[in-house]
């Protein structure tokens, strides 16, 4: 009896330690976001108070008013949405076609193709900005959306293909075989059978591609010097010089850009995790 309860209390202690560890981990992960959120809703005098307050004394939306009243910030949000949106659509179109061929069809150079695609995800992005800058100038797309979209596509495409291949492989082959027996061509089997079935996987891939393009900074910062096309990732770091001592406005801008991503992650965490780890583990 005594032995049993001793081991039982050890189990409980273990569980307690485990949950303390978990809570600590979750806190460390989200604390910076919460703290910056707090910075964004307090008054200027509270912001500069020493020692700093832990909880906001009198919350205010003034910093958000400043940010949303700033036309360059509004435009940057629109620009980010356009760049990430177009990148996602193009990547999904070419990526799903290529991924289907890789997942389903037999051909000789498959492993070379996959290695080439994988190599891109390891590629140092900065290695191509010098030649691309020259070429983009020659064809005259510097300072247009395309200057960010084109390189974004190249580096998002491997991610798109990789995740889609693992989703396509999980789909039952029998259905396509049946479609082909009924006289459908490869393309028809893809469009009528695979695409509807793979919709959830394609949707997850779309979210991941969108996050990737939304977060991209190097290409946008290199090829877009005109604030009419700059995305939020380029505009917000510059707020440090625009709103020199208005730290609340800087915090509010950072929160506005991350909140949509946090919501996406909270809603689709299970799918995102399976999408992200599929390629890495099986590959």
């Amino acid at each position, binding site marked *: 009896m005594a032995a049993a309860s001793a081991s039982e209390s050890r189990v409980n202690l273990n569980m307690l330690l*485990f949950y303390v560890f*978990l809570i600590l*981990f979750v806190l460390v*992960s989200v604390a*910076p*976001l919460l703290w*910056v959120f707090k910075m964004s809703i307090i008054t200027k005098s509270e*912001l500069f108070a020493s*020692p*700093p307050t832990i909880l906001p004394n009198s919350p205010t939306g003034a910093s958000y008013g400043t940010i949303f009243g700033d036309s360059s910030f509004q435009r940057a949000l629109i620009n980010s949405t356009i760049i990430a949106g177009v990148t996602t659509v193009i990547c999904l179109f*070419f990526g799903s*076609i*290529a991924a*289907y*061929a*890789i997942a389903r*069809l037999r*051909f*000789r150079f*498959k492993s070379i193709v996959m290695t080439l*695609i*994988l190599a*891109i995800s*390891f590629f*140092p*992005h900065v*290695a*191509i*900005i*010098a*030649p691309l*800058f020259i070429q983009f*100038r020659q064809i005259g797309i510097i300072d247009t959306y395309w200057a960010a979209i*084109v390189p974004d596509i*190249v580096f998002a*495409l*491997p991610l798109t*293909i990789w995740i889609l291949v693992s989703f396509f492989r999980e789909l039952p082959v029998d259905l396509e075989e049946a479609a082909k027996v009924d006289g459908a061509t*490869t*393309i028809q089997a893809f469009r009528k059978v695979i695409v509807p079935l793979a919709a959830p996987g394609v949707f997850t891939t779309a979210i991941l591609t969108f996050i990737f393009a939304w*977060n991209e*900074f190097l290409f946008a*910062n*290199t090829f877009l010097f005109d604030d009419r096309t700059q995305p*939020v*990732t380029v505009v917000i*770091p510059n707020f*440090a010089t625009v709103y020199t001592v208005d730290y609340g406005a*800087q*915090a509010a*801008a*950072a929160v506005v*850009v*991350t909140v949509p991503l946090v919501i996406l*992650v*909270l809603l689709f*965490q299970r799918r995102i995790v399976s999408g992200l*780890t599929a390629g890495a*583990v099986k*590959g």
Partner: protein
Amino acid sequence: MTTAPTERKKRGALREEFGNPERRTAYYMILPALFIILVVAFYPIAYSFYLSFFQANVNNVGNFVGLQNYVSMFQNSEFLDGLRNTVIFTGVSVFFEFMIGLTIALAINRAFRGRGLVRAAILVPWAFPTVISAVMWRLMFQDQVGIIQYVASALNIISQPILSDQTLLLIGAIMVDTWKTTPFMALLLLAGLQTIPGDVYEAAKVDGASVMQRFFRITLPLLKPAILVAVLFRTLDAYRIYDLFWAMSNRELESLSTFVYKAVRISQLNFPIGNAASVFIFLTAFLLALFFIKGLGMQTSTEE
């Protein structure tokens, strides 16, 4: 002449490959994606390599100068600063990310209540744009309103403003990167752990293996493929660090990538050296990947 038969055989195989309608369809389907990748990624690399032997600027190729750009590059103090910072940053941050990430993965590799919450918490820092997390942390490092500066000064750990000290900035950047990507590392390792069948451990337990023995003899060897993928991925990602340094330090902390960026966009006099540096980054990253794949036996097979 001796190659003729194999040549003919090869051509025959190619004709068979492309003669088969299903296979031809497959090639048509991957061609657009492949074309984009080749034109926008591989061609610029080749062009960059070619340009690195010329006194080039953004308008014309200029005179052939041989290896002079590479020699000047290694004599450039900003490049050397960038190289040193990048190597320190990569080594230290990947080390911490791996150690902490593995600990977390081992701890949460079981069924427990609140799993979804933990998974969401893992993804939150990962989903941030890196520049935005740099902006957030800069606000916390800031010497007038920054909580970290306040606490560190109150505890007498530091006396100077974090944001105007190169060493503290580098340490700060390593902290931010560790915060941002450790959870992702944990996620990749956790996925690897979940592929190890439980009965292997049961058998080892029956045979009397201790916790340590089970970890070093079973977990680590079986986890090796996942570890190599995760560590290589993180290493190459850290090696190309740009946004974090750029946004956190007000453009003062140099990395290899910020050096190239400045040469392309800010001081175009340095364009030839910057271009040579981009070739240097590409080649060294390639060698690193090669080391993981050949030297450490990372598996790159993509077939099921």
